[in-house]
């Protein structure tokens, strides 16, 4: 049970790359925090600074109010699970799991007991005497988790631990990680670029963009109330529909379209209207005319993709919408659908700064 605190943390690599540009964060004891963001945004760097695998260029990293900027990784009492597992190839599963404990000088009986217990919890008890090369990807993943668990660290760190697994196993392991974390109640930081993973695992998630925390909050809060265009488009699957627009004092104007229900917006700024795919509905008097391109059948619901006729285009790209609807809705290709939307739930952003205006 430990708190983690970051104060104005920055990282500049020796080659000049500014990976992290001032991050402040407080993580409560037992919280499950997820860093999510596109590849290269600095998530791993941030995590590795907490682990002690990268030096901190400036700012402070604290665990339980102790400044650990210059404490070695071993003494920070954190455990990490890597994307490629990083198991010791020549050691058995047991050897892998007990290595850290051995280095701490724990008595053999105690090590054995902890390893057996963790192996049981992860259902790898039958593999304890095998080498990593004799295990499947999912099993290796469990061993990597086991190696972290037996140490009983103050903080668990995960760097995209499920990215090397196939889709089905990924979902399974995701649930298992969540269950383990609940049960052990250890403060955890989890890095992923997969927003579904992020949404489902996190107590709170931090959306990282270009070395900064764009927004932090509970998954549902970020989904319902994104503070920026970036967060709105990163969180939510399928992605939020975006429509370039301007405001004339009464209506939102986008190409030939005139949308009412909006007020109190700047008139001289380029805007973006954001509508989630499930906020669209069939409506004969609605403002949008969707020309159907693709119908994806996902089982319980269908996703209908198509161009919005008459809408302002973003550059030379036609504005496309995704309409989430029920499984019995199967329009012909190239037919058109009349769609309306819930203007209470629509979001408006400043196109240039990304700031949410409404």
């Amino acid at each position: 049970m430990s708190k983690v605190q970051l104060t104005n943390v920055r990282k500049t690599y020796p080659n000049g790359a500014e990976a992290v540009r001032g991050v402040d964060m407080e993580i409560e004891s037992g919280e499950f925090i997820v860093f999510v963001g596109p590849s290269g945004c600095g998530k791993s760097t941030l995590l590795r600074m907490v682990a002690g695998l990268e030096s901190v260029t400036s700012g402070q990293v604290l665990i339980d109010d102790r400044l650990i900027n210059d404490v070695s990784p071993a003494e920070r009492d954190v455990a990490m699970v890597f994307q490629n597992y990083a198991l010791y190839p020549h050691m058995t599963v047991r050897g892998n799991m007990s290595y850290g404990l051995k280095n701490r000088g724990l008595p053999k009986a105690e090590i054995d007991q902890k390893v057996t217990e963790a192996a049981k919890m992860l259902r790898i008890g039958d593999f304890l005497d095998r080498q990593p090369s004799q295990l499947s990807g999912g099993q290796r993943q469990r061993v990597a988790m086991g190696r972290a668990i037996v140490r009983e660290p103050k903080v668990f760190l995960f760097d995209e631990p499920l990215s090397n697994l196939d889709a089905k196993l990924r979902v399974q392991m995701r649930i298992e990680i969540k269950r383990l974390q609940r049960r052990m109640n250890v403060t955890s930081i989890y890095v992923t670029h997969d927003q579904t993973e992020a949404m489902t695992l996190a107590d709170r998630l931090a959306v990282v963009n270009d070395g900064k925390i764009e927004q932090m909050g509970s998954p549902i809060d970020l989904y319902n109330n994104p503070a920026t265009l970036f967060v709105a488009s990163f969180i939510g699957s399928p992605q939020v529909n975006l429509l370039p627009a301007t405001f004339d004092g009464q209506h939102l104007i986008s190409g030939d379209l005139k949308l009412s229900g909006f007020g109190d917006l700047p008139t001289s700024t380029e805007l973006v209207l954001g509508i989630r795919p499930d906020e669209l509905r069939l409506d004969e008097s609605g403002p949008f005319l969707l020309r159907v391109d693709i119908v994806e059948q996902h089982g319980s619901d269908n996703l209908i993709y198509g161009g919005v006729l008459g809408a302002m285009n973003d550059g030379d790209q036609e504005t496309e919408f995704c309409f989430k609807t029920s499984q019995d809705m199967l329009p012909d290709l190239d037919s058109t659908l009349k769609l309306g939307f819930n203007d209470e739930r629509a979001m408006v952003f400043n196109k240039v700064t990304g700031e949410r205006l409404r």
Partner: protein
Amino acid sequence: MVLGIGLVFMLAPLVLVFASSTHTTSTLQLQGLQWLPGDQFVQNYGRIFSFQAGFTDEITPLGMLENSLIIAFSVAFLTTVLSLLTAYAIVFFRLPGKHIIFWFVLVTLLFPLESRFINTFSVASSLGLINTHAGIVLPALAAALGTFFFRQFFMTLPKELIEAASLDGAGPFKFLKDIVLPLSFSRAGAIFVIAFMIGWNQYLWPLMISTDDSLYTLVRGIRFIGQESGPGMAMVVITMLPPFILLLVFQRWFFNSLSAQS
């Protein structure tokens, strides 16, 4: 097919030498080398062990064997250890200028020992290494080759391995001992064998650096007995034997690490 021809070319001299080593000197001199075994095995090989040579001091073939073994084992051991440690430092640590160090090491591969005899000799003599085993061993260390070999292997190890170890409380020394060494075992065996052969087969450099007959190695000693004699042939066979035995002992490791990358 090509392999077959290659094999014949490689094996034929061995058969020829062994068969010839069982004939009398006069047979060899009158009729040339022999393809079929003769009846002089015991006499020829026995002669070697009662033979003495030398101008300034005495040296027996057993003494030469001892010299050869000392030198070859030293070359093999030092080459393996030095190149493993160099590669370890180059790959796993953020040394300033480590790429320069590596290229410098690699460049020395371009210049065979023979091309730097004069300089090496003056360095060796100023260090007082003339007429010593060390003088024969040190310049022959195949450290560049070994460093390159180990470096290539270490680069295939994921960098997360050392990170996982450091989180597990293993510093650089423990990581070397517990993780890198066990993983490098078969490769170290291969380098050991190669360096042993290099040390064993040295000819020119020992000739230059040592004037004492007591430092004669087997390879040099063949000259004393005369190659075209029965005992000379027997000596050639004995000279070839230790590297061959070593290769047999290490062969599984050797071929595993040189072929499959696992």
